[in-house]
């Protein structure tokens, strides 16, 4: 370690790569923390965890017993075990005794991205509440048409303060904190929406995954979604090459006998080449089929006819990589897929998974510089390499299903919460020397 620092001092190693090297060696040694413990007051399964985006210091958790709690993960409340184990108790808890409580389970709890003065909780009792952290009062209430599965706020937003909410209703609603009303709704899904995520590259782009298996990209300034991810469109490498687009061919018109006004067209998308394997010409057909409908549809709504599915079951988890170029999705068909956002294609990286939880949305997490993805699979959390799909680590510690995991890039720590009501901390291994008070030559019998 000292040699590394010396190399950095003398300039032989660049500071950035030195930091990255230290971080990745810490991540490689992640295990159940032997020096940090979070005391969880929840009496129901922990559904959602988030570390705040501004300081990386406060952890917000939401649980099935309608309780939400905030912990300070950098300063412990108590030190036990001879000063070695730090116990982090919650700073405050909102539970069923609170006057503004939720009635049923909290499915998602997120911080306001600008500062930690506000946080938002969405619950199965059809309400989304915005809370003031310092006075722990609910300042705003939004009523949704169905159980709220997931909420999200954009961390890049400078011109809007919208909460995107995915519920069991087919429409995605955007709630505005500034005005206290709904901004607009996005329709296009055919079943409930399980996960919503704002894009990391644009403040107006929202990605939603639904129970119908479709992943849709929405630009909130327009009507309708502008892309639906289809699992049969795939590309063989990281990026499609910039040259050599194959010719766009217009296919036959549809033979719908009712004389509907919409035409179906098949367009061939540009060909992809396999990574390092030499060029290969191939085209995948993109069919946006229109049914034989009588009425004219607004051009922005044409995508609601697109029935492409990203997964064979429901989409249970979505995460965009830090650079905003790739999207990672988990489905109830026990498949994890990596999508290239720019081209909308499935890069065929195969992640070895056996089973994933199917009825609840799960929260995935990526490490900084997107080298690892942390996925809760049943009772363990697996860390997959982003590009090769190999399982690097398996974190076994929970007694029951794991629902959520959150990676804190500042300390390289992973927090996971599960149905066993515990929040576990996984941190880089620190070894403690055991010779406090006894020298090597003595054993426990000598006095």
């Amino acid at each position, binding site marked *: 370690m000292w040699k590394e620092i010396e190399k950095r001092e003398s300039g032989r190693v660049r500071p950035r790569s030195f930091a990255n090297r230290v971080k990745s060696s810490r991540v490689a040694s992640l295990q159940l923390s032997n020096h940090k413990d979070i005391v969880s007051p929840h009496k129901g399964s922990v559904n959602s965890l988030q570390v705040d985006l501004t300081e990386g210091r406060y952890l917000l958790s939401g649980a099935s017993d309608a309780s939400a709690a905030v912990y300070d993960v950098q300063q412990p409340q108590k030190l036990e075990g001879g000063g070695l184990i730090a116990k982090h108790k919650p700073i405050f808890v909102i539970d069923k005794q609170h006057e503004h409580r939720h009635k049923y389970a909290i499915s998602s709890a997120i911080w306001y991205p600008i500062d930690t003065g506000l946080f938002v909780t969405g619950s199965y009792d059809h309400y989304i509440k915005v809370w003031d952290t310092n006075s722990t009062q609910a300042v705003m209430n939004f009523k949704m048409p169905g159980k709220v599965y997931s909420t999200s706020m954009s961390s890049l937003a400078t011109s809007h303060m919208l909460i995107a909410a995915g519920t069991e209703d087919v429409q995605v609603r955007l709630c505005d904190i500034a005005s206290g009303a709904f901004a607009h709704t996005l329709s296009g899904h055919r079943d409930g929406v399980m996960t919503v995520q704002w894009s990391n590259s644009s403040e107006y782009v929202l990605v939603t995954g639904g129970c119908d298996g479709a992943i849709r990209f929405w630009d909130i300034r327009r009507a309708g979604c502008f892309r639906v991810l289809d699992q049969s469109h795939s590309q*063989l490498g990281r990026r499609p090459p910039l040259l050599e687009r194959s010719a766009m061919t217009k296919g036959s018109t549809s033979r719908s006998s009712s004389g509907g006004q919409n035409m*179906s067209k098949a367009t061939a998308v540009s060909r992809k080449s396999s990574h390092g394997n030499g060029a290969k010409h191939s085209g995948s*057909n993109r069919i946006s*089929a229109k049914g034989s409908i009588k009425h004219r549809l607004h051009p922005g709504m044409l995508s609601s006819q697109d029935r492409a599915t990203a997964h064979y079951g429901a989409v249970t988890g979505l995460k965009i990589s830090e650079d905003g170029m790739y999207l990672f999705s988990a489905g109830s*068909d*026990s498949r994890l897929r990596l999508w290239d956002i720019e081209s909308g294609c499935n890069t065929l*990286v*195969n992640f070895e998974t*056996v089973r994933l939880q199917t009825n609840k949305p799960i929260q995935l997490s990526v490490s900084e510089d997107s080298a690892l993805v942390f996925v809760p699979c049943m009772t*363990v959390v697996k860390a997959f390499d982003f590009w090769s799909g190999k399982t690097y680590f398996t974190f076994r510690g929970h007694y029951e299903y794991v629902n959520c995991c959150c990676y804190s890039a500042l300390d390289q720590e992973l927090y996971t919460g599960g149905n066993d009501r515990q929040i576990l901390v996984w941190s880089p291994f620190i070894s403690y020397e055991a010779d406090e008070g006894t020298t090597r030559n003595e054993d426990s019998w000598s006095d």
Partner: protein
Amino acid sequence: MMRAQFPHIDKVSIRPFVLRSQLYSSVVDRTQVDRELESLRRTKVLRIFKLNTGQDDHAIMFLDDYLNQIERAVKRMEEKNVHDLEVFEWFKIHVIDTRLEPNISHQDLCSLLSLGGKVKDNQISVLINGGVIIRQLIDPSMYWFAIPNVGSMLKGLSQGRKELLSLLSRRRYKEMLLASLEKKRLRLSPLDMRFHLRDLIGSGHLKTIKTPTGLVVRISKE
């Protein structure tokens, strides 16, 4: 790589096909398998079908084997004096060559078949009876492509899987030596034991462990 699989499978009345999970168990790098399958599919060497047994099963078949299978199905239907068999010809020429995905929508099917001649609804029923397309359950206007006369195979597949898993789970430690396992015969399935073993190992239900006495097959717990 894939040709090596074929001699292992001895079929009764169907041309050989491979399951995707079997390929995963034979080749180490799964991403590579996916990518090669994709490129072979695009160059039309083979076709992928989605099966309805279990979560995510795909059957992979060489294209000429598939065409062979369709021929046999057509012959069988001729014996039963079903008319309108030229729809199979159109199907072969127009649909299979152009549509590479495992599913197809109703409009597409009609439009492509009509390139051969005028298509009627009962001709589509003939196609369904022949077994080349199947209606999707979720979405009534979409069809899956299918292999004709594969029903007995699929039944054997799911029953054989269940039987093999129950055989291992009844044992005390849920494991068995690979050598003795291979010698057993499955009661309910016409497919042989190695087929099922490779399939279950590839899909993750079983795992193999090296021991000093050989490989041991064990049920994986997660």
